[in-house]
């Protein structure tokens, strides 16, 4: 920048040099954002915010789902599908029973809400930090829920996401979570083979608490006006594990579509593996892949 460039000669800043303008801009940038009217900030947590976390119930450890109970509740807590949805569900159930399941998640997009909570076979963990509870999952790479407990409201028009926008508050030792803003394409899943996109306007209310010292219970209420005839209530259970072999590991769903190989230059690379339409891996001999 040459001398004098940046001086606004017609607008009233006559005489202010370019470097001076830059200095002022730098000073403005250094000011706290709260100085800018209308900007809401996340304030830095204070010591009392951190110490308050110690008064919350202990949800540390890794939590593994009770899959047998998930399966049982398909019969005991059936979803109140509306007529149009029930017809589609019946077809999906028939396909599954015939051994030709239409996999809902074979494209490796996230299970999202509420399906992650309903049908996962994988572990999850809960992190408490000031103003937030974070749930981290395993196996499909993007299992992550941010639940804001800082008193904020939902945005007026949230961008739809797989896991939606979640706000929570504590009622004694129960975390009450309210989730909206979920993509209409996100499934309400009975299983990995049966379920329907929620169709929009989905609202999920959860009450999460320790049912026993090492058993976490998630009481869910799913309000899906385009799919269900009434709010659907169900529960899911998780077991606490503390052995280190239960620590959450990285999971990238799409990695299963590749095997490790070495290219002509000696680089470690991924190469696609053959699969069926249903997502099953097949041996790398195309001739033998043909049905007998």
């Amino acid at each position, binding site marked *: 920048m040459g001398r004098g460039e940046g001086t606004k000669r017609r607008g009233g800043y006559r005489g202010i040099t370019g470097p001076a303008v830059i200095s002022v801009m730098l000073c403005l940038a250094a000011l706290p954002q709260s100085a800018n009217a209308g900007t809401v900030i996340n304030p830095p947590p204070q010591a009392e915010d951190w110490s308050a976390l110690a008064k919350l119930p202990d949800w540390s450890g890794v939590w593994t789902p009770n899959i047998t109970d998930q399966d049982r509740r398909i019969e005991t807590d059936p979803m109140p599908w509306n007529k149009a949805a029930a017809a589609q569900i019946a077809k999906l159930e028939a396909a599954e029973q015939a051994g030709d399941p239409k996999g809902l998640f074979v494209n490796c997009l996230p299970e999202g809400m509420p399906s992650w909570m309903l049908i996962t076979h994988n572990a999850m963990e809960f992190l408490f930090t000031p103003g937030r509870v974070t749930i981290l999952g395993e196996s499909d790479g993007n299992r992550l829920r941010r639940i804001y407990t800082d008193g904020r409201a939902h945005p007026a028009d949230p961008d739809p996401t797989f896991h939606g926008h979640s706000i929570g508050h504590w009622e004694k030792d129960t975390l009450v979570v309210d989730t909206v803003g979920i993509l209409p394409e996100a499934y309400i899943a009975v299983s990995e083979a049966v379920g329907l996109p929620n169709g929009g306007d989905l609202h999920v209310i959860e009450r999460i608490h320790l049912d026993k010292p090492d058993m976490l219970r998630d009481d869910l209420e799913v309000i899906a006006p385009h799919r269900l005839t009434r709010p659907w209530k169900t529960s899911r259970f998780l077991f606490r594990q503390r052995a280190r072999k239960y620590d959450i590991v990285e999971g990238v769903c799409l990695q299963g*579509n590749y095997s490790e190989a070495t290219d002509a230059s000696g680089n470690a690379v991924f190469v696609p593996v053959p699969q*069926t339409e249903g997502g099953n891996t097949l041996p790398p001999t195309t001739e033998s892949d043909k049905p007998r």
Partner: protein
Amino acid sequence: MKSISLRSLAVLAAMASLTLAWPAMAHHSFAMFDFSKTMTVKGTVKEFRWTNPHVALLVEFAPQPGAPPEVWSMELTSPGNLTRSGWSRHSFKPADRIELEFNPLRDGKHGGAFEKATFLDTGQVITSNLRAAEKPGLQ
């Protein structure tokens, strides 16, 4: 130039056919396996893929006595879940000789759901049952 273009087209066509034949699919239900049918075979491990969301074990065996050997792909749950069952990415290595029990794909393709393997050289047995680990405080 013409031959190069044709070759490029051929490569593109091959890539397209691969894409069609091998869609990007993985995270699936297990209903396509016939759990009423268990196949027991003796074979050799060709490859062990320790990947999400389903670990794969490729095994070569003769489906009938005297028949030419075929490679079949066995599917399991995720590395995280298998680690908790005592598995590791070293549980199998190429050339391991095993007796394998699995539930085959219903459509006759060369895949199955892993049930159990016995190492023929050591007698060690390895299984995978996620639902057997449904309680807290597991070691």
